[in-house]
């Protein structure tokens, strides 16, 4: 019999071990302890975050499937639903970035087709240390390679994403992958196993020792010195196998052959079967001797927790079994009946006739203790000031500052990454990366479409977890507004340090409070998400990084917004309640400024009202271009519009610098740098179009006319402020990431 010490090695506490024995009415054997250690891990049980997550709003008018299934979904009209979810693969990517990122994509795609939706898009959210670090460059290059390898090979477009470089991610990179799927609303399938006597079929790849201990060892403890030793447990992805598993799953569903479907992710057969049994309020018997193996001599507990990729479990009626197995054979994915549904409410594991584990399903799924966090706001800043890379002194005029910002790692063009991803397969992509602030996909047989964006600046959340998280949501909805889309639902991945430390618990608590407040104010439900904790190592915790992905809809994709200037002679304006501040901005980072303690409060409703006006103007087709002012502030946003449209611009900023201006922004005490480079996420937009269209927009939202599109230079003339930069110079600065992919 295993000892309490072994349980502790597997990540359980002594009290949890005692509780398991209590639930079983005896000491667990080896197989049972392995299963419990995974089911009661942070990764599966969310034991440090579940209580907080319950505070998030999960109801909304367009909700089709809320949290609890493999992915959530929203109704996009005409009987179609869009399923989506974001998930982390941080620790596996830190150990082996190519396979870690690849299997992250593979895992999130399985979540989507497990509910019966065809995957239609992937987005990624990546965080690394500064690119001056060789390790960060290695992780970036290989993670991008892994994402592309998987997504490109399986025929699902990677249509967007985001990337930040910050020192606190040096030891703990973040790789979050989001996927979207499309399904008929009445064709979604649940994961609840039902029908006593129904067979349980495992299909997909064979089972090996990959990722054994992955869920408990890799995802629920801080990475230590011995990471290299963990390499053999990394899962290896095979997109060709997943392609076949995906097509097979969708064909099984289309033929109406399945009662339930579930993918195998962290903790393999263990968590999948326990979840299926729990949701269906049934029991499951599994004979591990029937599981097709890739390696000889695997122990029952190894088979139960293996994280071999590209596998699915399904339940069907006995009469359909032959046809299910025939479809599996057609797609060469080796379907095998490995067990059956029982009325026992127990998960029982057999080797042939021998019973090797017998565990109550509620004990596995529902009885893991949930912990209250000990929360304490830190007395002093947790993070050192970023290293200065750009001086504020002589020679650092607005022109030099603009070029430095455009070339800075967090602002430079992401095309060197995006060009490594297939963004067009499936023929839905109406706006490709950097053509619009959000990716836009057409829906079938209709002029309507969806837009999607994923956002989350950890540095600003580090300044103020509550307001920074609201900003992340508003930045995301601003991006949707630029496309002309109304937000329907939100998914999130909460990447934080060790929540057993009171200051991290405070970050997490404040961030979730901000997320909930933002979602309630916008009436956007959280449809699902993922939590990744313990992202800290010797170098300290990561920036608290809530990543939010929002899906919105637009009535006419032909009118989807464009970021780039379109037509010489168009008028340019600044629109929205823009209130730029340098504190916490990208320029402040380049200058090595300390992170501010707190960000200015936000009136969420007022900001969203401004975004709604922008969205309405885009939908009316009255604007030529629209681009949200994000990192780097106003001047960077204008330069990005120039570059995206290959057109210059001439601006007169007097309306902003003149104290007598018509609109109350920026703040009257704003410095010149603050006006040009200050940030105010989600609140300002650079728009272009016919002057009368802009003036009409100005009746609904604060707006200042700034200049005109044309030529091949960006020119600013405002009293003493004179700036000229050729498009070529702007472009040369903006392609700064290209050398990272030699």
């Amino acid at each position, binding site marked *: 019999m295993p000892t309490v010490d072994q349980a502790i090695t597997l990540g359980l506490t002594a009290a949890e071990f005692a509780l398991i024995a209590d639930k079983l009415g005896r000491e667990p054997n080896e197989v049972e302890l392995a299963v419990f250690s995974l089911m009661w891990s942070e990764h599966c049980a969310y034991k440090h975050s579940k209580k907080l997550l319950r505070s998030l709003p999960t109801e909304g008018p367009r909700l089709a499937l809320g949290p609890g299934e493999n992915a959530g979904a929203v109704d996009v009209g005409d009987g179609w639903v869009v399923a989506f979810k974001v998930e982390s693969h941080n620790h596996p990517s830190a150990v082996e970035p190519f396979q870690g990122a690849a299997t992250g994509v593979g895992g999130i795609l399985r979540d989507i087709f497990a509910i019966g939706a065809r995957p239609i898009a992937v987005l990624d959210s990546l965080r690394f240390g500064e690119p001056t670090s060789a390790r960060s460059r290695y992780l970036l290059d290989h993670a991008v390679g892994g994402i592309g390898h998987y997504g490109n090979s399986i025929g699902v477009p990677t249509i967007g994403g985001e990337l930040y470089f910050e020192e606190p991610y040096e030891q703990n990179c973040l790789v979050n992958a989001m996927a979207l799927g499309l399904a008929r609303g009445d064709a979604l399938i649940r994961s609840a196993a039902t029908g006593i006597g129904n067979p349980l079929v495992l299909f997909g790849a064979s089972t090996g020792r990959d990722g054994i201990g992955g869920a408990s060892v890799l995802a629920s403890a801080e990475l230590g010195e011995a990471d290299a030793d963990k390499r053999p447990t990394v899962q290896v992805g095979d997109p*060709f196998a997943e392609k*076949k598993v995906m097509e097979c799953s969708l064909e099984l569903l289309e033929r109406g052959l399945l009662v339930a479907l579930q993918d195998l992710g962290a903790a393999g057969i263990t968590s999948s079967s326990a979840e299926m049994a729990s949701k269906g309020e049934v029991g499951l018997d599994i004979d591990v001797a029937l599981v097709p193996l890739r390696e000889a001599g695997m122990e029952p507990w190894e088979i139960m927790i293996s994280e071999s990729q590209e596998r699915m479990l399904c339940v069907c009626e006995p009469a359909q079994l032959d046809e299910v197995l025939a479809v599996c054979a057609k797609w*060469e994915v080796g379907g095998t009946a490995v067990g059956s549904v029982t009325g026992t409410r127990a998960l029982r594991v057999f080797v042939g006739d021998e019973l090797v584990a017998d565990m109550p399903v509620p004990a596995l799924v529902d009885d893991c203790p949930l912990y209250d966090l000990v929360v304490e706001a830190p007395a002093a800043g947790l993070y050192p000031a970023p290293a200065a890379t750009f001086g504020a002194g002589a020679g650092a005029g607005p022109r030099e500052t603009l070029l430095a910002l455009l070339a800075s790692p967090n602002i430079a063009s992401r095309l060197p990454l995006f060009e*490594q991803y297939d963004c067009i397969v*499936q*023929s839905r992509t109406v706006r490709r990366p950097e053509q619009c602030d959000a990716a836009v996909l057409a829906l079938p047989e209709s002029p309507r479409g969806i837009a999607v964006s994923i956002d989350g600046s950890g540095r600003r959340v580090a300044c103020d977890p509550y307001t920074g998280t609201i900003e992340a949501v508003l930045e995301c909805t601003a991006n949707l507004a630029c496309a002309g889309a109304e937000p329907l639902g939100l998914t999130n991945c909460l990447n934080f340090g060790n929540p057993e430390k009171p200051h991290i618990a405070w970050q997490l608590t404040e961030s979730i409070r901000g997320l909930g407040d933002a979602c309630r104010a916008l009436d956007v439900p959280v449809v699902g998400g993922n939590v990744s904790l313990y992202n800290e190592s010797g170098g300290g915790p990561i920036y608290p990084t809530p990543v939010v992905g929002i899906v919105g809809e637009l009535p006419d994709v032909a009118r989807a917004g464009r970021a780039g200037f379109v037509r010489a002679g168009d008028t340019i304006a600044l629109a929205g309640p823009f209130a730029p501040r340098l504190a916490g901005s990208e320029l402040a980072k380049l200058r090595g400024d300390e992170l501010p303690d707190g960000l200015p409060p936000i009136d969420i409703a007022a900001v969203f009202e401004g975004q709604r006006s922008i969205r309405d103007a885009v939908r009316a087709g009255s604007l030529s271009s629209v681009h949200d002012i994000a990192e780097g502030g106003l001047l960077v946003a204008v330069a990005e519009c120039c570059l995206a449209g290959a057109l210059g611009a001439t601006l007169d900023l007097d309306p902003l610098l003149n104290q007598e201006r018509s609109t109350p922004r920026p703040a009257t005490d704003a410095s010149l740098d603050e006006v040009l480079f200050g940030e105010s996420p989600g609140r300002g937009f650079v728009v272009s179009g016919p002057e009368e269209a802009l003036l009409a927009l100005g009746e609904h939202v604060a707006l200042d006319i700034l200049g005109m599109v044309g030529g091949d230079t960006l020119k600013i003339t405002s009293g003493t402020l004179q700036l000229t930069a050729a498009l070529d110079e702007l472009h040369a600065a903006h392609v700064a990431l290209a050398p990272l992919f030699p």
Partner: protein
Amino acid sequence: MRFGVIRFPGSCDEVDAVLACERVPGASAQLLWHGDADLHGVDAVVVPGGFSYGDYLRVGAIARFSPVMESVIRFSQEGGIVLGICNGFQVLCEAGLLPGALLPNVDRRFICRQVNVEVAQATMPFTADCAAGELLSIPVKHTTGRYYAPAEMLEGLEADGQVVLRYAHDGNPNGSSNDIAGVRNAAGNVFGLMPHPEHAVDPLTGSDDGLKIFTSMAHAHG
């Protein structure tokens, strides 16, 4: 006009190819399963993009021996019109239906980019609806798209007008010899190209220049 589009287990762009074929007035399209040697009487075959059988040994190498490809080889030998796109181009080269081979891109990376290709031969049956010298805006997306043929073969292709499409000036994305984006066989009934014309059939998603390849095929069929 009935197009048949091959579907291997690892095909990715087969549905896109069907949608593109169906945009041709009067045309229909159907998928042809790789394990089925019957071409079901289609008038032209499209071997689409993707990763056929995972492309593990060498791109296109294993797909070439599938039951459906044995039939496609016979179909082409009898004069049938065969279009290979991206992975399909690689498969047709491996099958010996087209000259040359596709090598890994010079920078070793997957590249997805809208490129301009110049129509070098505006002839039946694949480019008759284009003008010679016309630029078509069509995306590429591949890791193994560097066209290669030994020097002597290359000279022969050029002399015989078998180079149908070239990447436009300074736009060669992969290091292909002579900027070659697409070639046909000597008989002219088999054509392979790395750019994806099926992803350039609607201005809404970027361009409709690629549609001309499919309409040309329909016109050739009559």
